[in-house]
Each structure stands twice: as C-alpha cells, then as structure tokens.
C-alpha cells in the first residue's frame, strides 16, 4: 500500500538524520538531554506535518517562481505558532530550546519535504510522508539525547540511571559530544545496514 510505504520510509529507510543527514543543526545543537531532543523533535514534527499539508493543499495556486518564499512563510508561521505555544504552556522547555525553535524555519528537512514531496503529491500522501519523516526525526533526536544524557549526566529524562560511582563525562553534553555520538551511531548503522545508498545531503 502506497500510503503506508510513504509513512514507514521516514522511520528508518530514509530517516532524515541517520540516512539523509538532513537537519544536522538542531540534531547536534539541542540533544544534550533526552527531554530537549524529544521536545525539539516534536516541535519539528508539528511544523513538518502542518506545512506539508498546507503546501500540498495550495500547490496549484502558487506560481512556480515564488513557491520557495511561499513555503518559507508557511513554515515560519507554524514555527512561530509552535514557539508561542511552548512559551505559554511549556515555558521551561521553551527556555532551554530558546533560540533553536525559531531556527526550525531553516531546518532543511522541512523545506526539503515541502519542495521534494508535498508540492508534487496529494494531501493524504504528503501528510503520511510528513508524519513518517517527523517521527523519524523525533526518535533520532531522542536517541541522541538519551545517549548523551546517560554518558554526560548519568540520567535519562532527569531520572538517575547510573550508580553513584559513575563519573559523568561532561564532554558528552558539550558540543563535541554531539559529533562523537552522531559519528559513532552513523558508523554502527552503516555497518549493520545492508543498503548503503548515499543520499544527497545538505547542512
């Protein structure tokens, strides 16, 4: 079934973080704790799904030459909604993610899906694609956050999991830890994955 295929591909086969290496900026920057990775993933998920649906709905009305500005306005609108919503109802998370929420606008996963998929497919398929890609992005960020939090703080979602004798490796919650964790994870995934198709990557 096509719909199902469009959904499932984002979870693993074409996972934005581990397979396409897209959206590296939030991936590396905010995953210093599991909750931050999860929150960033969900915020991106929301923006991705909403903007994909809208782009797919109005794709015929938008002249080709101004499609990118239109997509960016649509994406920026949903990002601002997400930012305001978090500020009002989850102020602590918004405080931590701070600057990175507005930066979802330039997350290339979102514009990438709008341009490569939503603008060429029906609303239903665009929604399934965005759901899959968004969930794939969310679990990838959460996994990175969990690994970095365990090694860097000895906790997962702020719950102590390492014994008292464990010395946290602070470097894992600092920027270099993001590169180390992502690099090792990519290596492991490439080793175990039979298909080694290298997709085009942006930042």
């Amino acid at each position, binding site marked *: 079934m096509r719909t199902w295929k469009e959904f499932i591909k984002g979870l693993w086969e074409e996972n934005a973080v581990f397979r396409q290496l897209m959206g590296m900026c939030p991936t590396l920057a905010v995953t210093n704790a599991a909750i931050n990775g999860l929150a960033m993933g969900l915020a991106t998920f929301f923006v991705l799904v909403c903007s994909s649906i809208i782009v797919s709905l109005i794709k015929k009305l*938008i*002249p080709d030459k101004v499609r990118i500005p239109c997509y960016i*306005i*649509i994406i920026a*609108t949903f990002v601002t*909604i997400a930012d*305001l919503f978090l500020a*009002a109802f989850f*102020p602590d998370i918004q405080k931590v993610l701070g600057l990175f929420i507005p930066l979802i606008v330039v997350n290339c996963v979102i514009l990438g899906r709008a341009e490569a998929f939503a603008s060429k497919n029906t609303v239903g398929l665009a929604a399934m694609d965005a759901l899959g890609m968004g969930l794939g992005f969310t679990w990838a960020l959460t996994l990175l956050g969990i690994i970095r939090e365990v090694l860097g703080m000895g906790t997962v979602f702020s719950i102590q999991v390492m014994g008292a004798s464990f010395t946290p490796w602070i470097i894992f919650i*600092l920027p270099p830890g993001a590169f180390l964790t992502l690099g090792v994870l990519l290596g492991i995934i490439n080793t175990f994955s039979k298909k080694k198709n290298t997709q085009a990557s942006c930042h």
Partner: protein
Amino acid sequence: MNINGSARMVIVLAIVAILSGLVLALTFQWTKPRMDQVAEERLKSAILEVLSKATKYEEIGNDGTLFNGLDEDNNKVGIAFVAQGGGFQGTITMMIGMDVQSRQLTGMAVLSHLETPGLGARIEEDWFKGQFNAKSIDDPFIARQDVDAITGATISSNAVSNILKNTIPNVLEKYESGGGK
C-alpha cells in the same frame, strides 16, 4: 480572468503573507494571557525565594527591577532586585534579596543564563546560591576568596561575584533616592 505572471506572483505572495499574519495574531492573542501569567509567576517565585520572610511584594519605581518584600502585616522585610551582567557565554540575570538595615544579602536566584551545562550552569545549584544567604554586602565579592567558586567554571563564578559587586551600590542608591521611603 487572465492575470499576467508578475501580478499573480505579487497577489499570491501578498495573500499568503496576510493570512500568515492573521493566523499569528490570533495565536498570539490566545497565548498572551498565559505567557504573562508565566512571567509573573516566575518573578513572584524568584522574589519570594530570595526574601524568605516575604509573602508578597510591591514594585519600587516602574522599570521592573526593584521590589519591596512585604510580610503578612505589610512590614517591609527587605528588597529584591534584578542583577544582570556578562557571564561566560551570555548574559546572566539574577534576582537578589537584600536586607537594607543589616546590609546583608538574603538570597540569590538565577532567572536566566547561557552558561555551559554541567559546569557554569551549576550557578543554579543550591550549594552555590546558598552562600549568598546572610552575606554582608561590604564583603569584597571575589571568587575563590570570599565566594566559593565552581570547579571548572571560574569565569562563571567570577561573573556572578562581579555582577553582585557592581550592582549592589547602584541599587542602594536607587533605593535611597527613589521610592524607598
């Protein structure tokens, strides 16, 4: 109706932008009361944290940085003020409680900072904040002398000390000249 290319582009972009503005305005209206409430709660809990005897507060002046702490019988129990300055990576903003009569601090709470997680961010931990309780404002405020510094975060510890040292005289002056009476 046959609209030529450029006109259509302008119209479509304008419509998209207007709709976006409308949606954002509505969202903002919806979340604004809640955001104000969050900001007020944060301020209140910080003031009451640094002035343990206070149960409510009133603002002195109108720039939102200086407050009188009041107990249940409306007696003044001290002042709370916002202290701000440069840290290791960004601005550190703190709420400080002070007893003007005894010239002692009564507490410190960090409102916002951008210090390194696990190192400088430990200025938020109780053992660090606690040392400013009952600290005389005539102390020199030098990290590693009269202020315990955080291991691996000397700059953040220095920054907090310096911000306090620089802010206190200004606040006292403002309090005595301003609405402190």
